[in-house]
């Protein structure tokens, strides 16, 4: 592989100056002349029929310019879909209901109307004057209860899809999809086991915790086109959804990406933009819509909870002989939980010859879940990795050795069918073996160490880049991918090395849908990976064009042109040379023409990412409070383009996973969220965390010019089980439910409480 001087270094973020000076413009910073302010009216019921909406009092308030309900949105045929990424499409009739409920509300806080007024205070007052007559319906909140045949129906006309046969159930159901993946003979596998352990694990709904509440603004231009500014993870993706939802041709929409204050999957869908556009169309004024922190927590779409049963058997020497799992994921009020991803993530670290993996997508009267960093992965890994720890314990094998004995390798088949290309799981596990976080004895009472694995498939889909050479021999990169994680910097690093120019001489712009090359949304750990191919291709295109011009000047064939350090020369006579500066200068001269390189990629192989976390904890036995003494994250990153950014991604993901593991949860009462504030929805604060150590493994991915793997998702996957396993070693008590907050640990270690109340938690030899 080539030598790089910028790739692999921790270049400071290229957009750091505007970030740290507060000059970066986010959605909420928009201030358009003549702008109106929108406010959403939300349901106070978790399940109710909308009998009537009276907007007259709101409309009569001075300063109110429009009040809309679902009737003001274009009607949409049931089952209308829009592509999201790859083969995944979204049911836009469901999205329309989330944007604004038509006849029934299915979760507390669902939007039923919206107002636009001359200032935010009037808008808020007007929202309170929209009179909605509801007929409350029974609420189903718990996923297991929702699966019962006599449960209240979230959708009266939804019939369960059996994925294998594509048949629908006769009776309506809260189970939207049932899927089963099988391999080998699990009965024979369990019969061959020396020990079998079966447990059921429960996780709660959690929030992504992005700092910036959703914000967007819409304006109808004099020619009738709509300009939309939005803090979303993908402006092209938003446009695609709006085309279906509003019936506007793509050419009539210009979507401008604003800086984004975190998304983590929660800002992929166009849930607010349609309202801003319709209000702007009704009023012929620009309309801005910013939601509050409470709305963010209550109803914008959290991460999915799950109830997961895992049963696994192993021989005395530590070989897994069979595994079955049933994963029940709560999608909230509309289908689409990440249950299939849960099955994949949970099982991907292991060689499984005999396996049954069953999944249910279940509806409840809770907000429709949205993606959250490695969607579906964290609950699944909590269950599987805690179970593996218990199984290793049962047969008396060290938990690391147990993982090593059963670790998936290149050529193995993933649980849902795909063969694994090159992976670095084995190499990563070997690094743990000798690392002080694993070899240093953990002394003292009430202390314990836990290990857990994680996996993420890595995203592909479409990314594009354009690279231009400026007359002063600098380069400009133009992309359509929103920068969530520092991708402006990593893409610049790649282009700098390809063109052999200083990163200071590169600018990078994220362009709007009118100007930038198409890209799918930023998410799934896909941008740096896919952009490595697109930026590499665009850079090579630039070099090819430059070499052609150099060849002409040097009077040699293109193959005879060498390039290094901003100079082109004839390979047969290195004194016969021309500088990049000269070619760049001439590119804007008459008769020459600009240098524009293009690169695009749409379907790369997955770059599978594996991680392992090792946690040392101390428990206060009198209060149940956990202190994390040491936390180490191992991860196969393929190639760290920017090690500091990679470490930041790993640390950030681990922190979110730790929050999920220890304190974060949605607390509902009859479908109403009781802790819709950052005071009582307890994300970890800085003092709750130790320095999170990172250890990078670099086994190159099978595809891509630099061998890198996406790094963002997988670090949120292992913390639940890493901490549960550590807590077990500290207390002798296994916990089966997240979050493992002080009170839950307090009661569990005293043998009571709600720990593992779902299902049967038994273990023993087979």
């Amino acid at each position: 592989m080539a030598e790089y001087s910028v790739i692999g270094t921790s270049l400071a973020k290229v957009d750091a100056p505007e970030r740290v000076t507060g000059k970066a413009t986010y959605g909420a910073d928009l201030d358009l002349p003549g702008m109106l302010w929108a406010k959403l009216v939300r349901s106070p019921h978790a399940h109710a029929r909308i009998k009537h909406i009276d907007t007259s009092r709101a409309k009569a308030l001075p300063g109110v310019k429009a009040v809309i309900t679902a009737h003001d949105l274009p009607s949409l045929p049931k089952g209308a879909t829009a592509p999201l990424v790859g083969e995944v499409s979204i049911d836009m009739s469901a999205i329309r209901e989330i944007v604004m409920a038509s006849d029934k509300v299915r979760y507390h806080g669902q939007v039923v109307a919206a107002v636009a007024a001359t200032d935010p205070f009037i808008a808020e007052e007007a929202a309170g004057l929209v009179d909605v007559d509801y007929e409350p319906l029974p609420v189903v909140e718990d996923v297991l209860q929702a699966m019962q045949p006599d449960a209240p129906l979230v959708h009266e006309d939804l019939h369960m899809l059996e994925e294998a046969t594509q048949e629908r159930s006769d009776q309506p159901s809260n189970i939207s999809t049932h899927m089963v993946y099988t391999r080998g003979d699990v009965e024979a596998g369990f019969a061959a086991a020396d020990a079998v352990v079966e447990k059921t694990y429960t996780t709660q709904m959690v929030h992504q915790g992005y700092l910036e509440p959703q914000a967007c603004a819409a304006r109808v231009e004099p020619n009738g086109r709509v300009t939309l500014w939005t803090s979303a993870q993908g402006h092209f993706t938003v446009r695609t959804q709006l085309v279906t939802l509003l019936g506007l041709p793509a050419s009539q929409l210009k979507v401008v990406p604003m800086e984004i204050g975190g998304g983590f999957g929660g800002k992929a869908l166009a849930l607010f933009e349609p309202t801003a556009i319709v209000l702007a169309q009704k009023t012929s004024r620009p309309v801005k819509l910013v939601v509050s922190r409470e709305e963010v927590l209550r109803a914008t779409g959290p991460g999915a909870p799950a109830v997961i049963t895992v049963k696994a058997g192993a021989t005395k020497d530590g070989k897994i002989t069979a595994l079955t799992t049933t994963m029940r994921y709560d999608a909230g009020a509309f289908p689409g939980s990440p249950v299939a991803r849960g099955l994949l993530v949970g099982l991907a670290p292991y060689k499984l010859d005999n396996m049954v993996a069953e999944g249910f997508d279940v509806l409840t009267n809770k907000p429709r879940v949205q993606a959250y960093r490695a969607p579906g992965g964290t609950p699944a890994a909590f269950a599987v990795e805690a179970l593996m720890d218990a199984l290793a314990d049962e047969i008396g094998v060290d938990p690391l050795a147990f993982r090593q004995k059963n670790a998936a390798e290149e050529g193995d088949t993933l649980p849902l069918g795909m063969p694994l290309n090159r992976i670095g799981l084995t190499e990563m596990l070997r690094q743990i073996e000798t690392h002080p976080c694993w070899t240093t004895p953990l002394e003292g009472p009430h202390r314990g160490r836990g290990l857990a694995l994680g996996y993420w498939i890595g995203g592909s889909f479409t990314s594009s880049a354009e690279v231009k050479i400026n007359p002063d021999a600098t380069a400009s990169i133009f992309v359509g991918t929103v920068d969530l994680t520092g991708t402006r910097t990593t893409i610049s690093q790649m282009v700098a090395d390809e063109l052999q120019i200083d990163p200071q001489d590169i600018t990078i712009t994220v362009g709007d849908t009118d100007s930038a090359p198409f890209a799918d949304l930023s998410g799934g750990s896909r941008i740096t990976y896919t952009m490595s191919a697109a930026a590499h291709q665009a850079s090579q295109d630039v070099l090819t064009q430059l070499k052609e011009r150099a060849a002409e000047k040097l009077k040699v064939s293109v193959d005879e042109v060498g390039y290094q350090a901003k100079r082109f020369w004839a390979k047969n006579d290195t004194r016969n040379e021309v500088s990049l500066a000269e070619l760049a200068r001439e590119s804007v001269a008459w008769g020459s023409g600009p240098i524009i390189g293009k690169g695009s990629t749409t379907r790369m192989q997955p770059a599978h990412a594996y991680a392992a976390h090792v946690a040392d904890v101390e428990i206060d036995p009198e209060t149940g409070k956990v202190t994390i003494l040491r936390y180490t994250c191992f991860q196969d990153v393929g190639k760290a383009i920017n090690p500091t950014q990679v470490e930041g991604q790993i640390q950030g993901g681990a922190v979110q996973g730790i929050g999920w593991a220890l304190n974060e949860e949605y607390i509902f009462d009859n479908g109403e969220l009781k802790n819709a504030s950052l005071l009582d929805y307890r994300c970890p604060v800085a003092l709750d965390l130790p320095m999170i150590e990172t250890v990078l493994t670099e086994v190159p991915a099978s595809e891509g010019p630099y061998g890198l793997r996406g790094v963002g998702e997988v670090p949120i996957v292992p913390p639940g089980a890493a901490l549960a396993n550590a807590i077990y070693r500290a207390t002798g008590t296994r916990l089966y439910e997240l979050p493992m907050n002080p009170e839950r640990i307090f009661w569990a270690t005293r043998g009571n409480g709600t720990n593992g109340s779902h299902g049967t938690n038994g273990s023993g030899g087979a």
Partner: protein
Amino acid sequence: MSNKEKEGLSVDAFEYAAPQNLQDAVALLSEARGEARPLAGGTDLIAQMKENRRSPALVVDVKKIPELNVLSYGAGLHIGAAVSCTQIAEFEPVRVHYPALAEACALIGSYQIQNRAALGGNFCNAAPSADAVPPAVSYGATLVIAGPNGRREIPSEDFFVGPGQTVLEKGEVLVEIVLPPPPPHSGAAYLRFIPREEMDIAVAGVGSFVQLSSDARTCEQACIVLAAVAPTPVRAKEAEAFLTGKSLDDTTIAQAGELASQAASPISDVRGSAAYRIELVKVLTRRTLGTALERARGEAS
């Protein structure tokens, strides 16, 4: 949700005054039509107004009144009601003589909150979970109140009526909190339990004060004040009486914890169940008594 419950942008219109002296403040508050609220740090009041949980017609900023900005130590500690938690926590005599109060003032909210929040506000907001109240009460604080009918002084523990409610009558202002000089061979400590390390509200809190005999063998007097486990901060009087005259060994302290928990009447909410809070009172009572005892013996700062 009704409009009032929503996290709002809009604060209802109100009058604002910033009198330079106590007399004017009392006059303004007495003559106000509708609800009138004094404003010190505003860390509770402004948030409540933004969330439409309080809509006073008049807000009287008391930070310009000299008496409310006193912080002095001589014959006891005088803390003006508008003095910030940071000022109190950093005041040398507080650190030396009233460490439990310094501890509490340094753990409310965040640094930014502590810079604004006043001890007087912590009292007047009357949250059952107020962190600075238990240590102040346990040190035997007296509250000086000015009103249209002149001044009155009350024991700090008699100040609270219920959540958000105090004995302050219309027109009355809390002027200062006065702590007597700590007696010899005494010590105190405050601890609260939160699931995180900061930026949180007590699931339970306990402030303990002990005064030992001159030979440091027996407890002459104890005061145990519980937070977040009843509608108001409460004293665990049975536990206090039990400790009086006893030698403070582990067994005695553990029994005091059990007795203290009987004074708690907590609710279950999103921050913790009633049963867990009762268990926490036992733990925090034991731990604060232990530290208070060390301090009384001069074994710890």
